[in-house]
Every structure is written in structure tokens, then in C-alpha cells.
């Protein structure tokens, strides 16, 4: 359960998130909007990567300002470019590092790593250098590495932007079947069908909030008005 209360954020004197208030409790939530509309900034606030200038963000009642460690444990985050979020040299190591402070035994950790790799189709690449994977596999690895720690919420900032159609479908399908609450930022509008709620952002404000088809129609119309 995410609560965003009158949140504002500016870079310098440029306001990018402008007095946004939201209660996010649906299982799958989409966030769309033009480039620069403030989506990433808002999403980053959900796991405390950015702290709002005014207002507050609560995850399960915890303020992101005061409980960064706990918030990061609850909220997983996936970035557009998998290359920059893979931090260990090999595939298995990148998944394993997230469990470093889990208190699990060595064997339990290995079992969890293998399970996560298998679930994301990466088991055969276990000991391969991560940077040699394909872009789609890298994004799957990024997902596996985040999900292995079992966050309750997953925020995905354009996880499919750099991928081909086939990999867009694989990632989308994976996100669809997750038990976690998922917040997906995307420019691939068709990946939002079946979502419980889609928000449209424009110039730092939430300008539409509703069912996916309506939200996409609203967004398309909004973009067509632009010169």
C-alpha cells in the first residue's frame, strides 16, 4: 500500500512533480505520459531514491524520508537500462549479492539463486559474464536480481524500452504473473491491457486516472493536441 500525499519535487526552480496525491493499492498499476512529464521522478520517490521537497510518501505507513532501509527492502526497482543495474561480474553473483544480508545459510542462498535463475530462464547462463547476455536476458537478470529478495512492491521504469518485440512480450508476461504489486512506467501502451489502473501524467500532475483503455485514449488525445 503506497500513499503519496501532496508531493512536490523540483530540480533547481523547475517543478517536475507538482502536488501529486495518490493512494496506490491495486495489484497492477500503469503510469504513462510524455517524455519529461515527471514519471521517473515520481516513481523514484516510491522507494526513496528521491525524497520529495514537500509532502510525503508512505509505504505500508512508513515514511520514505525516515525508513530508507526498510523501504528499499519492500520496494524493488527496475531501470530502463539493464546494463547499468547489473553490478556483479557474473549472472549468479548478481542475483546472489541481494541476499548478502538475508541471514540465510550458504546452501539456502544457492538454492534461492538457482530458483530465481530458473524462473527467469537464466539457469544455463549461471556462471557466464553478465555483460555478454543479450539485452532481453540482461533485463530478465535485472528482474531476477530484484525479485530474489522478495520485495512486496515492484516499480519498473520502462523495463522494455530498449527491447525488441519478443523480449517486450517476455518481460510483460513475467510482470503480469508476479504476485507482487507492480507499478509499470512505459511507452509501450499495449503492455498495459489487463492492468487494474493506469495513471496519465503531464507536466508534473496526474491528469487522468482510470481503466487502461480510457487512460491510453486520453493520453493519445492529449498528445495529438500538441503542436
Amino acid at each position, binding site marked *: 500500500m503506497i500513499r503519496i500525499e501532496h508531493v512536490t519535487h523540483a530540480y533547481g526552480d523547475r517543478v517536475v512533480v507538482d502536488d501529486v496525491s495518490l493512494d496506490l493499492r491495486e495489484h497492477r498499476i500503469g503510469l504513462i505520459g510524455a517524455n519529461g512529464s515527471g514519471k521517473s521522478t515520481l516513481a523514484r520517490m516510491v*522507494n526513496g*531514491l528521491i525524497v520529495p521537497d514537500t509532502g510525503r510518501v508512505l509505504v505500508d505507513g512508513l515514511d520514505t524520508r525516515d525508513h530508507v*532501509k526498510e523501504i*528499499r*527492502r519492500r520496494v*524493488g*526497482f527496475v*531501470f530502463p*537500462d539493464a*546494463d*547499468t*543495474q*547489473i*553490478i*556483479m*561480474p*557474473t549472472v*549468479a*553473483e548478481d542475483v*546472489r*549479492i*541481494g541476499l*548478502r544480508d538475508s541471514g540465510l545459510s550458504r546452501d539456502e542462498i544457492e538454492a534461492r539463486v538457482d530458483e530465481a535463475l530458473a524462473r527467469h530462464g537464466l539457469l544455463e547462463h549461471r*556462471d*557466464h*559474464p*553478465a*555483460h*555478454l547476455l543479450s539485452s532481453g536476458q540482461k533485463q530478465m537478470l535485472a528482474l531476477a*536480481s*530484484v525479485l530474489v*529478495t522478495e520485495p512486496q512492491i515492484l516499480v519498473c521504469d520502462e523495463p522494455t524500452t530498449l527491447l525488441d518485440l519478443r523480449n517486450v512480450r517476455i518481460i510483460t508476461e513475467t510482470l503480469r504473473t508476479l504476485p507482487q504489486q507492480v507499478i509499470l512506467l512505459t511507452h509501450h501502451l499495449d503492455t498495459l491491457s489487463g492492468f487494474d489502473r493506469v495513471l496519465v501524467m503531464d507536466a508534473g500532475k496526474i491528469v487522468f486516472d482510470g481503466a487502461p483503455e480510457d487512460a491510453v485514449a486520453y493520453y493519445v488525445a492529449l498528445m495529438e493536441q500538441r503542436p
Partner: protein
Amino acid sequence: MNTVGLYVPGTSLPYRIPAGVKLLALLGTVTVLVVLADPWVSLGAVLAVVLLYILWGLAAHLWHAFRPVLLFLVAIAVFHAVFTDVHTAVRVCSQLTAVILLAGLVTRTTPVSAMLDLFTRLARPLQHVGVRPERVGLVLALTIRCIPMVAEAWRASREAYVARGLRGGAHRMVVPVIVNLIRSAEALGLALSARGLD
């Protein structure tokens, strides 16, 4: 650029020797070769290491381990042959060859994670002066991780440069490569934070 791809998965004897023992053996060999300083001993060591590669089914990797230093060795050999004597040329080159091949054998049979674990354990005494051992492991891992990142930044800039029909002037790529690296480093830092590893 396959710098971190050196490890060759396997299960034969050298894979089962702990990383620490292998590093000690490497250190011991270097010490013996340097202390004895004998061309015959060094040549014998080269032969022994080559036999180990063959015995452990890694013969195909011999050339790969040797190639990067070949030019370097030739230069050293020529230098010593001209300015010192052939005896020294043979000794220095065979010493270097033996050590490089043996180091190659260690890296090919030891997963990076085992190596990092070892360094993390070695750093443990530093706990008392405020160093966090798992930090040492993470920093080393990130360093290794950044090698392909630098290579990729260089490749991407080079490609964009060539695609625009420009040629030569490698110095002009320094700025885009650095910009690229700073962006990657920023994103990597953000990812570390997001994953609660900072």
C-alpha cells in the same frame, strides 16, 4: 574484450582446490623462480605448467593465456639479448612465461566469486580498524564489473564516431567516453541504492 570471462566452468581437480591454496601456490612459484634465478629451472617450470594445462583438459586455452603478453616477451627478449646476454634473455622470458601461464591457470579454474570471497576473508582482520570486509569484496566486484563497461563506452563512442564518417583522432573520443562513463557510473550508483547495497 572478455576480461571477466576468463573462468572456464569445469569440475576437474584444479576446480576443487580452494582459491587460497591456488594463490599460495602461485606466490610460491614466483618466489622460487625469482630466488633460484636459473634459466633451466624456469624452462622446466614452463614445461610443467604447459603439462598441467594439457593434463587438466585446458590445452585449448594455452594460446589464449599466452597471446596477450607475446609481444611484450619478444621485446624483453630482444632487449636482454642485445644489452645483456642471451642467458638472461632466456631466464627472464621463461620466468615470466611460467608465471603468466600459471596465473592464467588459476583464473581459468577459479570463479570470480570464489576469488572475491577469498579477498573478503583476507580483509577480515581489517575489521578492527573500521574496514567492512564485505565492502572490500563489493568494491573489487564493481571494479571487475566496470572493465566491460569501459570497453563498451569506448566501443559505442568509436562506432558513433566512425558512423559519422570521421576517422583517426582517437583523442576526440576521450570526452564522449568520459561523459558516457560518468552517466553509467551515475546509473550504477542509483542501482546500488535501489538494491539497498549502498
